């Protein structure tokens, strides 16, 4: 036992290593710990562990932490703490501690390493079960630790067994369905400074146990009497434990009890050298070994009385207690600087109630207990009502008090909630425990009612003449004790906060300093600025290069699904709105998918590689969703279709070379490939060696320009890209990003699912009736087209908009008003909104796509776009702005 130096409220103290901050402060004579949150009353340490609701601190040393119970903080050299008044503060600095998580499956989880928990561990370990034993104390033994008695050797021995994992300083925070528990382990706070930084400060355990044994023990309750909150008024079990461990600032004690625990603690105080003036017992008669022992020790026993009120010193410490009968009669004052309360035991039912178990009230024990023994969960020890025999508690929570006394009789210390508040709640009509809690805020503070819960229900019972269990059930919510946010974030911070997806060509994009766009989890190059260009300049340049020369884009993020089997065509005819079964081998076709509600859901190009082998592409964001969609229909509706789906998104890297000069570049990359229109037509696929790699080349265009998509195995993606850049140098090959891709497709009126659509557009709304098969008997979504609202005239339809001022780019999302003479000040009736809007190099003019009510019939009409700072005007046009005749795609 070495000494350590620590700081509390700016003053240095010395304590014994291994003891708690609370213990060390009592050892140093600190009884007045802080003042209360709202009423500013002096308060001292009252408890022993997490039930403490007065003595909270902010920890300023180490990583720092607000609002910690001083009873749970192990003192270490250099510890710096500040008392709080029930409100924490958050430092502005980052917490650079490491936090992590780990997962375990186990046969049996035992919660609590008291005698009951150790006994259960022994039992299951000897049956050959794997056991995880979790305890929130630094060493095993539970109450025995506090009593200073030795844990039997045969129980200690189980900790050494190979099939037992013992986790001390670990708190089971939550118990969930199917034996799932969450625990937090404090791994470094008890260690002296400079712990290796690779060790996590707190580890969150996720444990799935076939069976969970709850041996969580119990807390002692306080009693509700006038001025029961003065420093020096403590739970008897806590006071006796501190004092017998040498942390003893007290001289004279009065023990106020409802059970024999008070007598046991009186003896411990007596033995430790505190003069016990009296044991005041609300019971008329008491018996048992501990009672006899108190008599033998010559300690005065007062029967049938309890504490009514206390007196204090000028600084507010308790100096005397007035005892009386429960009705307040026969008062007598006794001097004492320690009032030790034993109000009965409250078994720790938290974990049980988390999974919906309702504790039962046992009057003989004056406690809510949980007796459970089923496949998933069992209880033992004090939680199960085994109080070890002779407690013989009275059901008593406090004496009758006058209104004035009730004003200072505290039920919840940290919330400063008094019996008076409580009585007002009853008077106001509150009957449910939940209502009383909300009316008074009892039980909502940092300790979450660990001490006040049962007391509150008991008092309501007393007030309206019902048993505590008729008031409602004692229910708690996870976590058992508070947990730092960062600990629950674990490693999911910074880079790891969400997975980043990259293509095989990503390293090239990075070295080109391209700003990235987050598309789902993918990082995609947004644009490729050269010599300090801004985005607008870069995109105009990239667009022009593609329309006039040749550009290159990394299209590898598109979702790709390999489809095999004789029924793929038939299947796709149901999935897509248009016909696929007629597609010829070697050809590609654009397709649109709808949900059963008839609304556009995804789109992409699908290729028939061979008779029974197809390759579908999806939107970048839609890949997983579409694969799930296909599997759902195949597995749950049409299991007889011979179709297998395989994701090949990463298998295939796709490099698109686009623009009038792409043919020249393609022929350089693949000398053996005939790239003429005659031999290699639009939507055709060819196989050739490209830069030495066998590739599938497709004549697919998302820009309207002549284009070739080079598809190779992912591991060759970077090689192909580099070859394209090399071979294209003299053609001024121009890499472009997602923004330019968006502008180019918009100029052609091609939609982007998720930009032109928001889940409420049919193909017809997108002016794509051409892609809805009239021949097919059925396809997914078809039936919904004929619903009243879906079939009605005047739905929002995709059109173009040209602003009168060609230099003004309408903000995307802006709403549109019919005519320019209409009122434009809000509230104003709108006819639609802008989905896409860009400046266009090709047009030398800005342009936009929009969804407008009855828009197709409105082409040529003037519109206004009202915004807070200005009103733009323009005209509704066709949604295709460039190359309406589709001549450019063939070069």
């Amino acid at each position, binding site marked *: 036992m070495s000494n350590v130096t620590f700081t509390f409220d700016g003053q240095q103290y010395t304590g014994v290593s291994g003891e708690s901050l609370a213990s060390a402060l009592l050892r140093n004579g600190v009884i007045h710990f802080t003042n209360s949150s709202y009423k500013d009353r002096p308060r001292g340490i009252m408890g022993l562990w997490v039930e403490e609701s007065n003595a909270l601190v902010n920890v300023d040393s180490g990583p720092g932490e607000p609002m910690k119970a001083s009873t749970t903080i192990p003192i270490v050299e250099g510890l710096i703490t500040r008392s709080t008044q029930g409100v924490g503060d958050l430092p502005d600095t980052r917490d650079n501690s490491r936090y992590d998580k780990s997962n375990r499956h186990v046969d049996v989880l035992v919660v609590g390493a008291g005698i009951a928990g150790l006994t259960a561990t022994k039992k299951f370990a000897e049956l050959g079960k794997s056991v995880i034993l979790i305890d929130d104390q630094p060493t095993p033994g539970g109450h025995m630790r506090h009593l200073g008695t030795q844990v039997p050797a045969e129980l200690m021995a189980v900790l050494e067994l190979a099939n037992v994992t013992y986790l001390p300083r670990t708190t089971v925070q939550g118990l969930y369905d199917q*034996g799932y528990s969450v625990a937090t382990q404090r791994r470094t706070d008890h260690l002296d400074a400079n712990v290796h930084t690779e060790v996590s400060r707190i580890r969150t355990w996720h444990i799935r146990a076939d069976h969970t044994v709850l041996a969580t023990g119990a807390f002692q309750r306080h009693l509700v009497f006038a001025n029961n909150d003065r420093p020096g008024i403590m739970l008897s079990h806590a006071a006796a434990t501190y004092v017998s461990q040498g942390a003893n600032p007290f001289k004279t004690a009065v023990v106020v009890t409802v059970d024999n625990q008070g007598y046991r603690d009186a003896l411990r105080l007596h033995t430790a050298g505190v003069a016990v003036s009296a044991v005041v017992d609300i019971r008329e008669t008491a018996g048992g070994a501990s009672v006899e022992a108190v008599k033998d020790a010559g300690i005065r026993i007062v029967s049938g009385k309890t504490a009514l009120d206390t007196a204090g010193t000028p600084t507010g410490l308790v100096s005397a207690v007035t005892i009386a009968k429960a009705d307040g009669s026969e008062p007598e004052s006794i001097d004492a600087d320690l009032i030790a309360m034993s109000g009965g035991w409250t078994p720790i039912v938290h974990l049980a109630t988390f999974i919906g178990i309702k504790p039962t009230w046992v009057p003989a024990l004056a406690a809510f207990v949980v007796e459970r023994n089923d496949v998933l969960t069992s209880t033992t020890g004090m939680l199960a009502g085994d109080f070890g025999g002779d407690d013989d508690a009275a059901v008593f929570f406090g004496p009758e008090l006058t209104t004035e006394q009730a004003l200072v009789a505290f039920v919840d210390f940290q919330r400063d909630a008094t019996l008076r508040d409580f009585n007002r709640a009853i008077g106001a009509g509150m009957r449910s425990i939940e209502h009383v809690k909300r009316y008074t805020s009892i039980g909502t503070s940092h300790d979450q009612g660990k001490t006040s819960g049962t007391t509150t229900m008991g008092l309501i019972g007393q007030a309206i003449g019902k048993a505590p269990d008729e008031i409602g059930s004692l229910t708690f919510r996870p976590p058992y004790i508070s947990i730092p946010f960062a600990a629950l974030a674990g490693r999911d911070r910074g880079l790891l906060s969400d997975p980043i997806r990259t293509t095989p060509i990503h390293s090239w994009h990075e070295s080109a300093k391209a700003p990235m766009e987050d598309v789902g989890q993918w990082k995609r190059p947004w644009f490729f600025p050269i010599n300090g260009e801004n985005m607008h300049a870069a995109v105009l340049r990239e667009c022009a290069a593609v329309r006039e020369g040749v550009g290159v884009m990394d299209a590898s993020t598109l979702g790709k699904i390999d489809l095999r089997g004789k029924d793929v065509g038939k299947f796709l005819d149901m999935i897509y709105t248009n016909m696929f079964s007629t597609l010829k081998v070697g050809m590609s076709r654009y397709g649109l998918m709808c949900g059963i509600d008839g609304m556009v859901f995804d789109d992409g190009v699908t290729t028939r590689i061979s008779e029974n082998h197809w390759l579908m592409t999806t939107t970048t964001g839609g890949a997983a969703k579409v694969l799930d969609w296909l599997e759902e229909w195949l597995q749950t509706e049409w299991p007889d279709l011979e179709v297998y789906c395989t994701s090949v998104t990463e298998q295939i890297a796709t490099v698109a070379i686009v623009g009038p000069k792409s043919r020249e570049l393609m022929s350089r990359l693949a000398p053996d490939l005939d790239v003429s229109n005659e031999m290699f037509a639009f939507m055709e696929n060819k196989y050739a060696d490209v830069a030495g790699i066998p590739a599938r080349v497709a004549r697919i265009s998302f820009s309207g320009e002549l284009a070739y998509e080079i598809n190779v195995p992912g591991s060759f993606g970077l090689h192909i890209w580099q070859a394209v850049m090399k071979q294209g140098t003299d053609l001024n090959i121009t890499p472009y990003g997602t923004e330019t891709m968006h502008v180019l497709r918009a100029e052609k009126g091609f939609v982007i699912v998720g930009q032109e659509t928001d889940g409420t557009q049919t193909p017809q709304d997108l002016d794509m009736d051409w892609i809805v098969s009239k021949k097919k008997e*059925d396809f997914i979504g078809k*039936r*919904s087209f004929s619903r009243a609202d879906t079939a009605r005239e005047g739905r929002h339809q995709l059109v173009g908009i040209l602003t009168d001022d060609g230099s003004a780019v309408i903000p995307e999302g802006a709403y549109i008003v019919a005519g320019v003479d209409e009122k434009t000040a809000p509230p104003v009736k709108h006819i639609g909104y802008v989905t896409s809007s860009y400046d266009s190099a090709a047009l030398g003019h800005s342009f936009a796509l929009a969804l407008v009510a009855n828009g197709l019939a409105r082409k040529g009409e003037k519109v206004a776009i009202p915004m807070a700072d200005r009103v733009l005007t323009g005209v509704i046009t066709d949604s295709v702005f460039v190359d309406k005749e589709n001549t450019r795609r063939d070069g």
Partner: protein
Amino acid sequence: MLNIPCPYCGPRDETEFHYGAQAHVAYPESPKDLTDEQWAKFVFIKSNPKGWLAERWVHNSGCRRWFNVWRNTATHEFGPSYKPFTQQPKSPA
């Protein structure tokens, strides 16, 4: 964190699955012959009882199979799980 009994892989954490709501709602034989009301019922109405529900899950991070399982929505207790197009076990209720 539910522990969901996949009939192919055994019990796995909820995070490996996607939910599919009420089981045994088949795509209509001939949608075009349904009234709008009947079609709306197929599209939008899924059973939502408090208690035992035969529901669909897909083990999409595992074997990728869809399956059905009885689950009590009031207690999160699982009953038997079973493959599509196999005999439905009777409700544990």
